[in-house]
């Protein structure tokens, strides 16, 4: 398979994984709203049968439905923003905004592995001229790689720093890993090269894995 084909295939796979994960979460929200509406029906039916109407309880359910609707709206907006990252091949990117969107994308995979993600961002954001989809794919793939290589309950750190001529993003696992995913590991350098940057893989003696993405201010 050529590098171009590999990039296209991995890009599509990433797009599919993220949209599947979001659609699952949105379905969860719809399921909860369905059950809350059903519970409201149940209480109204009970009142119809002569028991007192539990107004406070109904109010509580109504508020919870409202909360879930807002939760759903937020997810749909994020999914929409993600879908639009492929609109422009190169644009000026606010890196903190991009990483915050990415953290939302990674929420479900992290939860399923009982992992936590701590971030460290500079006070002032960093702007890069680059490919937003590619950048999110690179960082997300690093998170996935560390999760796949770790036991549950891993603590991941995501650090954004200014670097001469660009930026550096470090994704590191606090706990030792158990194995490395070879396929992902070989794909990332190709992706980083396309973004004009490079990846450094550091495995310490005690088994901690750090992936450091160095990015130029502007994609060549």
């Amino acid at each position: 398979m050529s590098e171009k084909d590999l990039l296209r295939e991995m890009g599509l796979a990433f797009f599919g994984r993220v949209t599947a994960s979001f659609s699952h979460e949105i379905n969860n929200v719809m399921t909860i709203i369905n059950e809350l509406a059903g519970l409201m029906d149940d209480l109204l039916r009970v009142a119809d049968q002569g028991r007192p109407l539990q107004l406070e309880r109904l109010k509580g359910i109504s508020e919870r439905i409202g909360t879930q609707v807002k939760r759903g709206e937020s997810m749909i907006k994020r999914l929409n923003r993600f879908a639009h990252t492929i609109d422009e091949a190169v644009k000026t990117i606010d890196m903190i905004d991009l990483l915050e969107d990415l953290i939302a994308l990674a929420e479900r995979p992290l939860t399923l592995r009982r992992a936590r993600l701590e971030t460290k961002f500079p006070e002032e954001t960093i702007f890069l001229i680059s490919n937003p989809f590619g950048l999110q794919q690179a960082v997300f793939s690093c998170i996935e790689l560390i999760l796949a290589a770790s036991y549950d309950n891993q603590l991941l750190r995501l650090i954004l720093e200014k670097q001469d001529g660009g930026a550096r993003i470090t994704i590191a696992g606090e706990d030792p890993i158990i194995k490395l995913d070879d396929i992902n590991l070989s794909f990332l350098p190709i992706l980083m090269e396309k973004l004009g940057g490079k990846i450094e893989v550091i495995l310490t003696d005690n088994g901690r894995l750090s992936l450091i993405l160095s990015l130029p201010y502007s994609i060549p």
Partner: protein
Amino acid sequence: MPDKIKLLVVDDEKQFLETISKRLSMRDFDVTPVSSGEEAIEAARKQEFEIALVDLKMPGMGGEEVLEILKREHKFMEVIILTGYGTIDSAIRCTKAGVYNYLEKPCELETLLNVLREAYQRRIQNKLKYKDEKLKGIISEVMPASPIEILRKLKEMDRELK
């Protein structure tokens, strides 16, 4: 007043877990809600449940593993998988592991209630079938033993099935 059906509900989405448990409690079920696979296994070891309603994708121990362990450790428990993430492959694996039914979320409550009642029916049928086979086995094993011997074996069997 007849006993309610003892139902274990397992889902990591707490809002869903709380609401479905309330709705089922208002009907014929004595519901124990738990939010992880590990808690489900522990709960089932501490008290008897007749049916378990299990989410498929959960952090830590997933629904398929919960299904396998519950079916292995609790002969007559029926397990229903409820998921927002169904695939044909996982449905096949669950069927092989002995799932009673595999439902997708969101699921109409009437549908769920019908499946729960059918699952309970199957549980009773399986218990009766087991009792019947055991009885036949005892009779053929102890014949031509004394009536006291036969009675003792039957009493043992009855205790086992409680």
